[in-house]
Structure formats: C-alpha cells, structure tokens
C-alpha cells in the first residue's frame, strides 16, 4: 500500500495539542482578516498562505516520533528531526497545490457561484497535491533503481 491512514493516531493527540492547533488556527484567521481590513486585499491575500500551524505541526511530529522511539528504548532525537524534515518536504510539495487552489479561486470566483469555486479549488488542491507526491515518489524510485543498476 502506497498511502495509508491510521484512525487510531487520533487517540494519540493530547488535549493541549488540540488546543494549540485550534487557537493558532483561529488566531491566524482573525489576524489575516484584520490585516486585509487595514492594508487591503493584496497584503491580506499573502497571509492566506501564511504557514500558520506549520511550526507547531512540525514540532509535534518530531515529539511524537521521539516518544515512539523512546517507548522502544531508543533515543529518538535524530529520528524525530529527520521525520520533521520529511514532513516539511511534503509541505513544500503541498505549496504547489496551494498555489493551484488560489489560481482556480482567482480565475473562477468573479464569474461562478462561490460554492462551485470552493469545490473546484479544493479538488484542484487535492489533485495537484496527490499528483505531485506520486510524481516525486516515482522519480525517487526511478533514481534509486538507476543507482542500483549502475553499480
């Protein structure tokens, strides 16, 4: 299986982690609205792509991996940071999809119903994100195969 989902992972999220994400997310949305109100839609729009919970998310990924290794009796500091780097790599690919979301929005919004645009933009984000990830994985696999063959 290439991609898997573990519903049990939700149980592992501690109450304070839920609160951090909720409060950060809410605060950034309020800030984005206030910035747009004071400085106009151009500056406000930039903040729609602000890495709101990325720092909190990456550090939680690191902490979870570290705890996971600690339970097995290892020092997971390095492993935790490597996994956080992989997570950040995924986020970089997600940024391409984020730009795709915004592009669909700015092209279609003035002429189509907002609900349809929300749906189209979200679908575009999902398609580009998954497509970019699958392409990256294929290229990485090809590069690894090529390296093995040339030995």
């Amino acid at each position: 299986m290439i991609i898997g989902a573990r519903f049990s992972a939700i149980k592992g999220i501690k109450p304070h982690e839920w609160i951090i994400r909720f409060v950060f997310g809410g605060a950034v949305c309020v800030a984005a609205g206030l910035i747009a109100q004071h400085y106009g839609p151009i500056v406000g729009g930039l903040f729609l792509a602000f890495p709101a919970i990325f720092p909190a998310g990456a550090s939680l990924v690191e902490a979870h991996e570290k705890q996971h290794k600690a339970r097995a009796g290892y020092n997971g500091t390095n492993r935790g940071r490597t996994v956080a780097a992989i997570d950040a790599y995924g986020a970089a690919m997600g940024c391409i999809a984020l730009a795709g979301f915004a592009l669909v929005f700015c092209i279609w919004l003035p002429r189509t119903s907002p609900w349809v645009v929300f749906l189209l933009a979200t679908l575009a984000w999902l398609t580009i994100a998954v497509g970019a990830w699958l392409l990256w994985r294929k290229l990485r696999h090809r590069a690894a195969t090529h390296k093995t063959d040339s030995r």
Partner: protein
Amino acid sequence: MSAELSESLARFFIGGVIVSFFAVLAEMFRPKSFAGLFGAAPSIALATLGLTIASHGPHYAATEARSMILGSIAFLCYAASTTWLLWRFKPSALTATLSLLPIWFAVSFAFWLAIR
C-alpha cells in the same frame, strides 16, 4: 455585539475547526512525506474566503486569492529551506521552523513591492 467583533469570532471558530481538521488528517496519514502535504493545506483560505465574499464581494476575494498565489511561493521557499536545515544540521523542529519564518516574510514583502 458589533459586526466586526462577531465576524472576528466567526473567523476564529471556523479557522480553529478547519486548521484542526487538516492537522488530524496530517496525523492520520502515512508515509510522513504524504502527511506533510496537509501542512500546506488551504486551511486559512477555506476558513476566511467565505466570510470575505459575504462581507466584501467576490471581486475583493479574487484579488486576495491572486495575492495568495505569491504567498504560496513564499511558503514554498520557507518549507524548502526548513527541509534543508532540518536534514543538514538537525536542529529541533521548533527552532528550525521559527528561525526561518523571516524567509516567508521577506519573499512575501519582495512580491508585495513588485506588484503594489
């Protein structure tokens, strides 16, 4: 309660719920490179653009979305730098992500100077 305050409260609540939702997806999915995609999900945009359309109209929201494309490029520069720093020097994730945040501001500011 003033209209501004109630709009801010709505933004806070909707933003919190959507950001938490994408955080749960990121926690659930494996491998981590795939889960990382949700770190750059359009959570703020989904939470706020609806309210912006309702209060300022579709043209205003479309202008914001155009600017968001540039914000996404700034995010890409920031996420790529974070990957490199974490991979190469292995600082703590919080140190790496917070210390490189000025990259997002610098790239966004450069774009703003270019298009204003």
